[in-house]
């Protein structure tokens, strides 16, 4: 039976070690793998390192370092655990593994760069536990969500479920644009609001609800009508926009502005018992005008306030929008890019239709020239005159 010293000696003879001085130039090129315990990791880490406590190494490494030929520099506090971890990685088929001698202690003593990681608080670890359990999200994904900024257009039927789920998921910044006040007729579907809030600004009511649900979320309110004069400023800096507006001119305006700013839009729309969801990812897929070159005349496009809508319907559609937003933020799965999901509540069917990018699209095509200006009911693209001004329709 081998003693610890003998086992360590044996292990070190079967792996390669490098000194921190030789490891440092490999930051950015090799994957640095930190195999210490969480409390050690929280005190400081090598920038960009992947964290897997040694006890979870075998079960988690394939998810976090899928490429077995990737160069890996393993470190711990002093170079012992990383030596054992390096051997394990070799046994798992990793071909280019080194253990950093002297570990993080020597790295730090030699004055090499390190940072304090953003880690979740114990309360956050508890709150987001079910996310953290998902290998596709994990602690890293949760950190991403906490650092993410999503803008919701409308705190109404679609915006309500989307906002609630995004806030619950821990999206760190949620912007909400709505210029309306809460009305009793909203409560049949707009679950952000309640009886006590009737007459309040919708953005204020939304902020109260979301903050009560999750204090991690910074709710930024815009109690304005979204228009050509403010849209570029408002959407600037957001990672994803969830479109729950209720009219064609605003949707076309948003399309143009999101193309200019390269911000993906999760589109949702509802009518009576039917809903549609898709993702417009600027220049990586079709835009709103590729899907719908022109809006219908107002007489053929009655709004929900005229035609009615089943209250649960926006709950389904807005929730799917929230899923799509999270997928975009975490780069998960197959977003509804280039696909329109059509939901029919009466048939209880979900159907997918292809949406293609139109090479001649006046908004995102090759020769498109985007001008941000108010749209009328016709929503025709704005023509630019020779002097650079916008032609009136």
């Amino acid at each position, binding site marked *: 039976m081998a003693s610890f010293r003998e086992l360590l000696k044996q292990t070190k003879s079967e792996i390669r070690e490098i000194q921190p001085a030789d490891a440092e130039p490999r930051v950015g090129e090799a994957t640095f793998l930190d195999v210490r315990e969480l409390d050690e990791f929280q005190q400081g880490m090598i920038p960009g390192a992947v964290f897997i406590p040694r006890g979870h190494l075998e079960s988690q490494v394939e998810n976090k370092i899928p490429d077995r030929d990737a160069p890996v520099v393993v470190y711990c506090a002093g170079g012992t655990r990383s030596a054992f971890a390096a051997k394990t990685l070799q046994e798992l088929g990793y071909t280019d593994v080194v253990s950093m001698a002297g570990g993080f202690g020597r790295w730090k003593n030699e004055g090499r760069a390190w940072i304090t990681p953003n880690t979740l608080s114990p309360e956050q670890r508890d709150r987001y536990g079910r996310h953290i359990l998902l290998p596709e999200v994990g602690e890293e994904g949760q950190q991403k969500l906490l650092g993410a900024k999503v803008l919701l257009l*409308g705190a*109404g*039927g*679609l*915006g309500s479920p989307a906002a609630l789920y995004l806030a619950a998921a821990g999206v760190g910044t949620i912007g909400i644009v709505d210029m*309306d006040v809460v009305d009793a007729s909203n409560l049949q579907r*707009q679950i952000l609001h309640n009886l006590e809030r009737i007459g309040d600004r919708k953005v204020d009511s939304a902020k109260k609800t979301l903050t009560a649900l999750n204090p991690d979320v910074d709710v930024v309110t815009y109690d304005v009508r979204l228009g050509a004069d403010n849209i570029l400023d408002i959407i600037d800096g957001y990672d994803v926009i969830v*479109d*729950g*507006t*209720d*009219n*064609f001119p605003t*949707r076309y305006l948003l399309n143009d502005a999101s193309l200019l700013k390269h911000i993906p839009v999760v589109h*949702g*729309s*509802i*009518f*009576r*018992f*039917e*809903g*549609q969801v898709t993702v417009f990812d600027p220049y990586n897929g079709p835009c709103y005008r590729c*899907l*719908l*070159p*022109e*809006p*219908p005349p107002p007489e*053929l*496009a*009655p*709004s*929900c*306030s005229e*035609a009615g*809508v089943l209250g649960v319907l*926006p709950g389904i559609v807005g929730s799917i929008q929230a899923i799509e937003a999270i997928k975009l933020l975490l780069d998960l799965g197959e977003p509804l890019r280039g696909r*329109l999901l*059509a939901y*029919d509540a*009466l*048939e209880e069917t979900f*159907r*997918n*239709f*292809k*949406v*293609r990018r139109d090479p001649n699209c006046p908004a995102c095509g090759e020769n498109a020239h985007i001008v941000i200006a108010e749209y009328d009911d016709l929503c025709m693209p704005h023509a630019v005159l020779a002097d650079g001004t916008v032609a009136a329709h």
Partner: protein
Amino acid sequence: MAVEIKLPTVLRAQADGQATVAVDGATVGEVFNALVARYPGLRGNLLDDSGSLHKFVNVYKDDDDIRYLDGLDTKLADGDVLSILPAVAGGA
């Protein structure tokens, strides 16, 4: 040749409340002509004065937009399904 057309709720009132209508035709254009002949109330919703499809009406053969097939000349076979998707802006 019978083709099934799925109508969105917004158009069903003009088609005796039906969600799907079966009509004969060898192309999308023929099928649409047969559809609006049977339900004249649908014409203005689907076709413009020249008989072309409105740009705000999306029609799919299975999951493909007919704009990227042959438009109204797209050939159809017995049992094909056409879906009409309306432009919808509601969200509040």
